[in-house]
């Protein structure tokens, strides 16, 4: 396995092509593992406490070895950088055609540093890379930028695929994401602000080169088997039709939504159900990631017959809302019509901004207004004009979105890094403590799902390396009460699937974090794994595909160790930045305010929080009091070099 890395120094305009040697794949698998390593190496020679919006930050794009090789398990590209909104390790995955095309362009990894003197974009075509003037693209949203770039570069030697930022990224809004082909957003952690701060508007790729596959016959037969496994499960067809939207009913049933800034956990009204979406909305096209057997995503168009509200949006086209788009719109903001939820998804996508942090910023302010903690005059001061803040009112919501994207007014400026930092600054300005109403977890990142009854999920929110997030150690064993998996991984014990006990919850996070790190390093989509072909084992079943492509044969135990090594490097980056146990925490409402409805009322995170966190550190082999890594654990994982650096920074237990 060999791969190429393109190093771009935007300050000098220097472009350098490097080979990534086989040993690096042996150690870091690929994808996010290699991205993390490139970031780690960069911060050995640059100040890790630099301003994330400054030229010293690094922005890495990478795709893993399984992507685009016919595995059929979906493609996810990954961006890695120091997060401008949370100030910690940041990364984000995204699908679409961009990561697929990157693999045929000659480079699988792109590391960008410095800052361009004027707006530029990077064009890569069959190993030839160029920085081109982007002044004509500046000020355009992601859809327009993508269309212009596609037109400019045409279809030879291949179609052009792009990674772009919108005005939000240009304005260095901390919660701005990066959008692949104007459809798929790398939303978390503010990659858009990093690109914006570097004056890099877009990356456009083309290519018709090939990729080496070590054992093509093995790959074809693995892929055949994988597809058969997916095809034999009828639930996969449900997922093809509805995507994650199918979860709305389940979340409503158990009380896992995030209603009005999590004052409740169930949607009000009957409209926001996946059944209604399927019945009423006109699908006209798929918009899939390449190399994916499932194809869960589609494009829709509003014709005005769906509902009264939908008449406002006749002719509008968008992707089907995902669960979290719905959770933020119908939940956090209480929008009650599907067309509005879809419209919310469309504008956040076109503006390339994280709808989790954005919706929680808006719902924070709406709750202050609802409780009369701020007056109309206070709101007018924030917006520079009179502004209503009504739950479920799309006009008010749009005014808030534009304030943030275009940095129009005080509200936009205060909340450019999400609700936590916004609430802190606003509390200071008003001389009042509003933090009780800010919803966030680690790093100040927010998430629009009810967490309190679910100890593993709460633990995810507190420990995820990139700030509160469920994708790092997703607690499906617990939420779906998978006793079978609990038994499989924990010597016949079933507690990981039992919501009523803190036992094995931290262990479950540690286990799944390692598995997810592996999947992210393969460069595949997590949903194939959630639908569980081959028994929920990225280290086992997927390991065979990894071997067929790279020629690296690993036992499942070795691969789990590889996953653990990748997680430990992410942790080490955060430890160097100064994160300790006290940073692994969640907001007041989750911690102390009991749930009032849903299937699990009366729950607070504090019930189990510390027990679970202790157990997590224990399973990780980290020290409990400081939350820091131990030399013994790092040595065991072959990370002595990392331990040395941590010791120098006094970030080792």
């Amino acid at each position, binding site marked *: 396995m060999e791969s190429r890395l393109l190093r771009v120094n935007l300050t000098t305009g220097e472009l350098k092509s490097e080979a990534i040697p086989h040993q690096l794949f042996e150690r870091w698998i690929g994808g996010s593992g290699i991205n993390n390593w490139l970031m780690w190496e960069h911060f050995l020679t640059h100040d890790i406490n630099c301003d994330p919006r400054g030229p010293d930050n690094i922005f890495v794009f990478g795709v893993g070895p399984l992507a*685009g*090789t*016919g595995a*059929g398990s979906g493609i996810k590209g990954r961006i890695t950088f120091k997060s401008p909104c949370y100030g910690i390790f940041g990364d984000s995955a995204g699908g679409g055609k961009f990561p*697929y095309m990157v693999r*045929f362009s000659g480079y699988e990894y792109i590391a960008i540093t410095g800052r361009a003197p004027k707006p530029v974009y990077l064009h890569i075509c069959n190993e030839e890379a160029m920085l081109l003037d982007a002044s004509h693209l500046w000020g355009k949203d992601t859809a327009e930028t993508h269309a212009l770039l596609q037109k400019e570069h045409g279809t030879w*030697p*291949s179609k052009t695929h792009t990674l772009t930022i919108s005005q939000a990224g240009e304005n260095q809004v901390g919660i701005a994401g990066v959008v692949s082909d104007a459809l798929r957003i790398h939303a978390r952690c503010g990659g858009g602000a990093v690109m914006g701060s570097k004056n890099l508007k877009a990356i456009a790729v083309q290519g*018709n*080169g*090939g*990729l*080496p*596959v*070590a*054992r*093509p016959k093995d*790959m*074809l037969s693995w*892929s*055949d088997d994988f*597809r058969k496994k*997916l*095809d034999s499960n009828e639930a996969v*067809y449900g997922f*093809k*039709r509805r995507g994650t939207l199918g979860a709305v009913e389940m979340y409503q049933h158990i009380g896992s939504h995030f209603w009005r800034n999590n004052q409740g956990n169930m949607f009000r009204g009957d409209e926001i159900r996946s059944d209604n979406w*399927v*019945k*009423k*909305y*006109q*699908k*006209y*096209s*798929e918009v*899939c*990631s*390449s*190399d*994916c*057997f*499932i*194809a869960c995503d589609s494009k829709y*168009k509003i014709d005005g017959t769906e509902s009264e509200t939908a008449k406002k949006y006749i002719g509008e*086209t968008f992707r089907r809302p995902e669960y979290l788009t719905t959770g933020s719109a119908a939940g956090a903001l209480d929008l009650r019509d599907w067309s509005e939820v879809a419209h919310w998804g469309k504008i956040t996508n076109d503006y390339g901004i994280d709808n989790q942090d954005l919706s929680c910023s808006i719902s924070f302010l709406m709750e202050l207004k609802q409780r009369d903690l701020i007056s109309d005059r206070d709101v007018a001061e924030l917006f520079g004009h009179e502004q209503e803040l009504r739950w479920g009112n799309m006009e008010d919501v749009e005014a808030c979105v534009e304030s943030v994207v275009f940095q129009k007014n005080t509200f936009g400026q205060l909340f450019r890094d999400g609700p936590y930092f916004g609430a802190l600054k606003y509390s200071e300005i008003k001389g009042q403590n509003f933090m009780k109403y800010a919803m966030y977890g680690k790093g100040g990142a927010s998430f629009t799902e009810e967490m309190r009854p679910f100890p593993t999920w709460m633990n995810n929110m507190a420990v995820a390396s990139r700030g509160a997030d469920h994708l790092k150690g997703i607690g499906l064993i617990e939420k779906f009460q998978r006793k079978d998996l609990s038994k499989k991984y924990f010597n016949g014990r079933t507690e990981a699937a039992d919501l009523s006990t803190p036992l094995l919850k931290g262990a479950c996070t540690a286990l799944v974090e390692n598995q997810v790190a592996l999947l992210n390093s393969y460069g595949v989509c997590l949903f194939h794994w959630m639908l569980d072909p081959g028994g929920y084992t990225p280290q086992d079943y997927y390991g065979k595909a990894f071997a067929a492509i790279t020629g690296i044969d690993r036992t499942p135990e070795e691969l789990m160790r590889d996953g653990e090594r990748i997680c430990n490097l992410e942790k080490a980056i955060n430890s160097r930045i100064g994160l300790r146990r006290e940073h692994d925490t969640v907001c007041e409402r989750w911690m102390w305010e009991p749930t009032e409805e849903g299937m699990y009322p009366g729950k607070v995170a504090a019930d189990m929080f510390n027990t679970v966190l202790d157990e997590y550190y224990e399973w990780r082999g980290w020290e409990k009091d400081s939350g820091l890594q131990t030399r013994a654990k790092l040595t065991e994982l072959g990370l002595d070099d990392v331990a040395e650096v941590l010791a120098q920074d006094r970030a080792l237990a």
Partner: protein
Amino acid sequence: MTAITQIEMVTGAVRYAPGEEVPNVAKKLFALRNQCTECNVCEIACALAHSPDGTVNPQLARLRIDHAPEKPSKINPLGIGFIAEICHHCGNPPPCAEVCPTDAFYYDPETRAAVIEQDNCIQCMECVPGCPFDVVFVAPSGELLKCDLCGGEPVCVKACSTRPEMLNEGKQYNRLPVLFFEDQPEFNRISKQIIEKRDEIGLMQAMLERGEISSSA
């Protein structure tokens, strides 16, 4: 129709005497328009299966996924669905072979598909415009690429995972298999239903009538 001269097979066996009529391909591929999700798995699988050195490159595939050149229709109001562009395996000898100045085409003994003998091909590209369906492709190296039915078990068909779903609720169009062999159960089922139960799959029927579904025949 003049049959082209049959060259010796790679195996050395001569199947058809010069001037003899070559039988047509018995099992043809069937591709549905607009139902494709552009997942590109068929392209990758094809490239992988035909890869001489283990390199996978979709530009070396013998089929392409492209925007459907359809006019807007009910299920595809913007006319932007996708279509698998694949060899129609026209009656033998096919137009691509007929225009070949070097007789570089031969017939696979199993499937009777016309296949390009790369050693005899002078890359004059005559077959590219010669193909009425634009499905003879040019590799980046200049090599001409044409579907050879993988000797009878096309990997693209295996790789196409969209399968028939006859539920039709609300405004969701049905997802159907895009690529399949005519003797596959899906094909038989669909064609049987089209004949027997016109009302149940009226959508399918309407699509056929409007030409939104194409078969290779």
